[in-house]
């Protein structure tokens, strides 16, 4: 895999990477701060156990430039402000951070300034308005929260304090049906993309939940248990193809364009700090083949920022790889 991938008139340049395993063991999702894209909120589940044996569930506010935590907190348990299976994170119009718990069936709310626990809502169940396995979440422009439910196999549109506005979906593999769906994305036009994990596809819906199209279940760009979706300003769709360890890119009409497998040949700032702290690591890395770590390791969430940078979070390496997309790329007209 080259550090630069050119397909048609699009070029994807690998830029840099962020974080380490210690940033987010078993990372699940992240969201860029609405006001400062160089800050993110990241959640991780470790091994999803209810007793700590080593790594545990955490969430953190992270500075992407410095590649270090602004704050981070360990959160194992069912008490207020803690998690068993954190799954999705979203930022509300109030700036607060909303984190879903796929096992405790609740949404917890935290201050984005200092991480203070502000409240929670959610009643477990399958009735409209109740929650069954809340996973991916995004707010739309109007401040409504869309929650994907992996156990109830549906999407709910809720107010930020959990009152139900709309519900759609059921278990199945037909249009508008789901099998353990995971991530969600809302594009600039308000269309909703859902990573339909168990059905190996992405479904696109209108803002009011009408099925528009599905892709990834067959043919080129076939997905395996996709987890996250993002779109860019040109309408291209990026899918975290978790099961295939790649980023799958589609155009706005859902035609596959390219597959990206990861190119992180150098360490992140954070990673370099970890290595520098232990001379044995430095020596061992000189002897070993590092190419295996260039690749994505369970890419799980993806966002595109306003600089057209595609940021892919890898669940198992706790790292993010950043690509920069150049649109309207034209081959040089002279001999370089």
């Amino acid at each position: 895999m080259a550090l630069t991938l050119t397909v048609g008139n699009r070029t994807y340049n690998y830029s840099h990477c962020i974080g380490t395993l210690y940033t987010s063991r078993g990372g699940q999702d992240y969201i860029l701060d609405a006001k400062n894209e160089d800050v993110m909120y990241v959640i991780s589940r470790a091994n999803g156990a209810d007793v700590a044996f080593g790594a545990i569930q955490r969430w953190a506010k992270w500075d992407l430039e410095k590649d270090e935590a602004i704050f981070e907190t360990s959160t194992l348990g069912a008490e207020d402000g803690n998690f068993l299976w954190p799954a999705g994170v979203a930022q509300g119009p109030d700036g607060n951070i909303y984190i879903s718990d796929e096992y405790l069936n609740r949404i917890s709310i935290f201050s984005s300034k200092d991480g203070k626990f502000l409240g929670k809502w959610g009643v477990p169940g399958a009735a409209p308005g109740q929650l069954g396995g809340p996973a991916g979440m995004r707010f739309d422009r109007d401040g409504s929260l869309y929650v994907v439910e992996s156990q109830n196999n549906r999407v709910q549109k809720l107010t930020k304090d959990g009152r139900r506005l709309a519900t759609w979906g059921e278990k199945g593999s037909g249009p508008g049906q789901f099998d353990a769906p995971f991530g969600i994305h809302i594009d600039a036009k308000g269309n909703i993309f859902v990573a339909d994990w168990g059905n190996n596809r992405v479904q696109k819906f209108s803002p009011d939940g009408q099925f528009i199209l599905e892709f990834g279940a067959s043919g080129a760009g076939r997905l395996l248990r996709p987890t996250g979706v993002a779109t860019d300003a040109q309408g291209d769709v990026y899918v975290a193809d978790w099961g295939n360890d790649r980023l799958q890119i589609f155009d706005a009409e859902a035609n596959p364009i390219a597959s990206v497998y990861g190119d992180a040949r150098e360490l992140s700032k954070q990673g370099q700090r970890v290595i520098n702290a232990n001379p044995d690591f430095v020596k061992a890395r000189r002897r070993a083949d590092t190419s295996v770590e260039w690749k994505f390791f369970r890419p799980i969430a993806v966002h595109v920022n306003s600089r057209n940078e595609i940021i892919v979070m890898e669940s198992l390496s706790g790292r993010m790889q950043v690509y920069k997309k150049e649109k309207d790329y034209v081959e040089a007209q002279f001999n370089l």
Partner: protein
Amino acid sequence: MADRDIPLMAHLMRRAGFGASRDELEARAKKGYEATVEELIDPDAHGMPRVDILKLYRYHPMTEVPPNPSSAQMNLIFQFIQTRRPLEEKMMLFWHMLFATGNSKVDSPPDMIKQMEILRSKGLGNYKDLLLVISKNPAMLFWLDNNQNHRTAPNENWGRELLELFSMGQGHYSEDDVKMAARAFTGWTMKPKLPRSPYMRGTWEFEYRAEDHDDGDKTFLGRTGNFNGEDIIDIIAKEPATAQFIARHLYNFFVEDDVQVPSWLDVPAKNPKAVDTIAKVLKDSDYDVKSALRFLFNAPFFKDEKVWFAKVKNPTELVVGVSRLVGEYQERSMPGLVQTAVEPGYQGQEIVNPPSVEGWHYGSEWIDTGSLVRRVNYAAEKLGNASFPGVQSIIDRLASKFSLTPEELLDGCLELLGMIRLEAGTRKQLIEHVQAAGPLKRGSTEAQRRAFAGRVSELLQLIGSTREYQFC
């Protein structure tokens, strides 16, 4: 269906699997004993699906590259509980108990999981092939110091255990054979490994270093030549002791508890004739494990009622058997999976971390005052919990019977728990216990239903606490 079909099927499923519910036993008995054996030994040919492991990794991400033994145990226990190919998992356990490799030294749960996957995928294949793959498995190489076995400075650890514990057994080779085997395996090592920090990508890969291999002639078990590791395995496989040793292990694991391995040289097998015939099948089939197991499970010595309930369940069998029966983690995983995963360790069998290369001592040695309390508590707690679907189903089936004496209630519970047998004394005590609590009423009100469920689950708990429940 003959009267003996279901109890015999229950015996097969306790040994070749982790036990089975009454419904499963009925379905299997209808299909037939031999057909069930075929399905168990060749799950691929019978379309039995593998566990959808991505369903574990989605909800428990770090179990895919476990940072600690408990996460590795979650990975394994999930597959034990969900599998529809139980003999494949039992054979993985069998080989793990034989090729015992411990994370206490290896210190890399992801490498341990890789080794376990070899034991799973090749455990029902050919023993010779498996022995060769295990000889190249980095966790094993590191565990037995073969990465320090050099042309100029041989290390005999791997060569010794290969002969003593993994193939022929004590008494069938000389000290010189150990030294020659060690020389033949010089240069078998692993590539430099990427440290697991910062991205958890570092697992070992095998590497053969020709420059570190001793190319001189070696005399091994009476043959002389410039042997490499593959030649040693070929020669070992030709020795009658090898087939005998593996056959005795199979008999010990599946039929009757033997004395501990270090005593095998002095104490004959419990059923030498049976071991001889299994060894012959192994030899005649060039070490095809499926052929040996097909023979074993269909043999009169296996079906003989004298060997039913004659083996002490190992902790993994006990824990997984109970979990499968009560139906936990069948629909989906839950955060409590870790508690189930570490339970066999608390009972004395810490998977991926045996106490030494000799593996765990088995049979009655599984039971001591500490482990017995844990075993009883574990079974009683799960079997007495009516919120588990498997327990609820037992209650529902008993509640649907028209009339139920205390004897019938006990027999019903024993049947539904998988055809458990009790000794007369235990049976009498349990019946008296049921009688003492007053007449059994089922009724239709919520309170009556709850009371009946309470009586049943209490009796299930008591059965789970009996001496007899410790056997399979």
